[in-house]
């Protein structure tokens, strides 16, 4: 699979019908189709039979990108995505069981380091900004999607997910030019007493990225042009920067929004150019 950046869009999940598993009546699967990320669907327990769901798209759609956002999945959690021609079927595609947590850490910060866990452990989105993400090796067409979660040892006794993304995607033949910038926006503020002692008001940190696709074909440019129309600055895109490196993909990828609708340049003969800025959804 090409390692070039994938932009997942549109999220077809919202228009589908979800079912299956066992979810709290007050926090149902329908919450996965709500734009409000903090509005989670919560399973009634952590049994595998409870922590699954199916999505019926009504008609067969092209799919390539998937994500579980704002989840409480534990370090040992696994998930599996299947695409079928029947509800729950896997005739089209089967991802097999995948580790939810793909990120790995080198000598600087070990996986089990307290420092590492401070950032991502827990059962709330605020402490766990990294989504479970999956980019399929190719484009597949299916009506039915099934997601299974294996997290029976979750300390909460349940799993919860704030948003499910199941979308088409665009991946250009040439990757972004060197100069891509991954950044955090810290919503926190700092004030000071008369003597200079600081008062910190900690808020969330949100990711953003800016990069330039220097060499787009006319066809690719037309897809990006359509992406901008469909998504605008309010719709969501799934930014998957390293499709062939799941760990890095999870670390730097996110569900976001276009910060602006940049003009698609025409710098050279048969070459289109598009700068993109994407900011993480909150």
């Amino acid at each position, binding site marked *: 699979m090409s390692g070039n950046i994938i932009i997942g869009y549109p999220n077809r999940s919202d228009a589908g019908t979800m079912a299956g598993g066992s979810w709290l009546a*007050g926090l149902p699967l329908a*919450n996965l189709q709500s734009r409000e990320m903090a509005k989670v669907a919560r399973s009634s327990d952590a049994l595998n039979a409870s922590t699954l769901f199916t999505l019926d798209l009504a008609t067969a759609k092209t799919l390539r990108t998937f994500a579980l956002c704002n989840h409480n999945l534990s370090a040992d959690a696994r998930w599996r995505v299947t695409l079928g021609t029947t509800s729950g079927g896997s005739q089209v595609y089967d991802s097999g069981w995948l580790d939810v947590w793909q990120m790995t850490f080198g000598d600087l910060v070990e996986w089990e380091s307290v420092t590492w866990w401070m950032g991502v452990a827990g059962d709330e989105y605020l402490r766990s900004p990294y989504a479970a993400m999956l980019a399929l090796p190719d484009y597949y067409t299916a009506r039915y999607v099934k997601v299974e979660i294996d997290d029976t040892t979750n300390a909460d006794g349940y799993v919860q997910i704030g948003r499910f993304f199941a979308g088409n995607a665009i991946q250009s033949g040439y990757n972004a030019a060197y100069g891509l910038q991954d950044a955090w926006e810290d919503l926190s503020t700092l004030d000071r007493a008369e003597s200079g002692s600081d008062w910190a008001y900690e808020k969330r940190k949100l990711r953003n990225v800016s990069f330039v696709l220097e060499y787009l074909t006319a066809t690719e440019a037309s897809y990006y042009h359509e992406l901008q129309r469909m998504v605008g600055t309010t719709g969501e895109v799934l930014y998957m920067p390293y499709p062939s490196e799941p760990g890095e993909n999870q670390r730097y990828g996110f569900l976001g929004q276009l910060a602006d609708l940049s003009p698609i340049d025409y710098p050279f003969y048969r070459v289109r150019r598009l700068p993109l800025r994407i900011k993480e959804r909150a």
Partner: protein
Amino acid sequence: MKRLVVEITMVVDAIGTEQTFYFADTAMGFTTKPTDTPANTYVAGRLISAGSFRRELFSGKRVTGAVRPSFGELVLDNGDGGLDAWTGYGISGGQVTVRWGEHDAAYPAGYTTVFVCAAQYMVCDFKEIKLRLRDRLNLLEQPLVKTSFDGSGGLEGTTALAGKLKQWVSSDPGFFPPILVDAAKLLYFVQSTGTGGLGASFDIYEGGAVITRGADYATAADCLATSPAGGQCRFWFGTGGNGPVYVRLGSVPVFDLRVFGDGYQSTGSSWSLIALAATGGIAGGTGTAIGIGAQLIDDSRSILQVMQDACVPSLAWFGMTRLDAFTCGVLTAPAVTASYGFTQHNAKGWTRTPIQDMDAPVWSVTVHSGKTWPGNLVAGVSGTMSDYLSRTPWWASFSSEDATIKTAHPGAVAEVIETNSRYFQNLASQTAFTAAYFALFGALREFYTFTAQMDADTLALDLHDTVEIKIPRFGLTAGKNMRIITQSIDCDNSQITFGVWG
């Protein structure tokens, strides 16, 4: 990482069904845990601003009285129209609670309540809903006396009396006129309040001469049926002496009638700020027992006005705490022990300013106290009664000056204080008041404002608490204890601005 959570409880239908809505600040929405209250509930991140909460101990010119609230607005994001149904809800009077806590703390047990208040009204546009907030003291902005004679006869008087308010008496306001209920029966209404077991102290005077009391009536029916002997009067104090109080005369009076009575709660206790607040719908008040004093209310004065008046002679204050509880106390100089200390290391924006209308010490105070009802006098009445029934317009007027204050502060001012309460009935009470007044307001007082970080310690501070101010300026290097008299909680910036006096 902390977040604010707002609970808004309001009536959502015509039959009074209440519903509580929960919101967190923007980008901080969450779903409660199974162990939270409420459990498994989505708390939308719609809170753009939790507003501010400001209270001032001084609501008038060197008069304490009601704590003056001044709330900001609570702003909710409604760009998606998700709250449009609110326009049909009964928001006015809805309870608003603002909590603050770590994002992973148990809700609400692990959160600190920043303030509790009431919604007044809301303003909506296509993007936002703005809730105007205030405290519940407005519940006291209703007439204290709402009961009137219905004119149905008997104790309710003739049709000519219908609609006249039944006068309310606290303690002993002096010699006041009774209300003629039935001219044929020579039946008079004295007061709606009970006697506190002091029925024996009641007397009715004609032209300053006391009318001989016959035996008290045992029942209302007896009162209506049996006339006193000629030249005498008989009282009906209500069941158990709990009022209302009536009196009948045995002979037609020629001169003005005046009653000396006492008014108490049905429990026998004196009327107090806490008790009056309860009659207005704010129950469960705490604080210093501050009496309403000797007052008669026979007009449309509000409960709040009566309480304000009662605070004057006591140098008292009352209001709602930030947690929506009624409290009251007496303004005193800063205590020896401070609840908390502020320095340049934990506060900013230090400013020394005078309080409005309190920019100079007071060197002279004149007090007028106690409404009077002067009347004509029968020949031969005692000099004392002649004095009592001739005083007008006040029962007592007195003044005091302290020239040393004027010497030290040439710009010192003279103040005049008026109260309807017949509080100052002797020289000792007058002297005690002027001494306390000069102690508080005769000295050059300092007033500082500064802003501190909102945390558990600063949130715990309340009006009238004593804090130590210790900064390397304004001669405060060694520290000075001062009273908190203003408090402004800025939820959005997690800061509290205090005003201290001392």
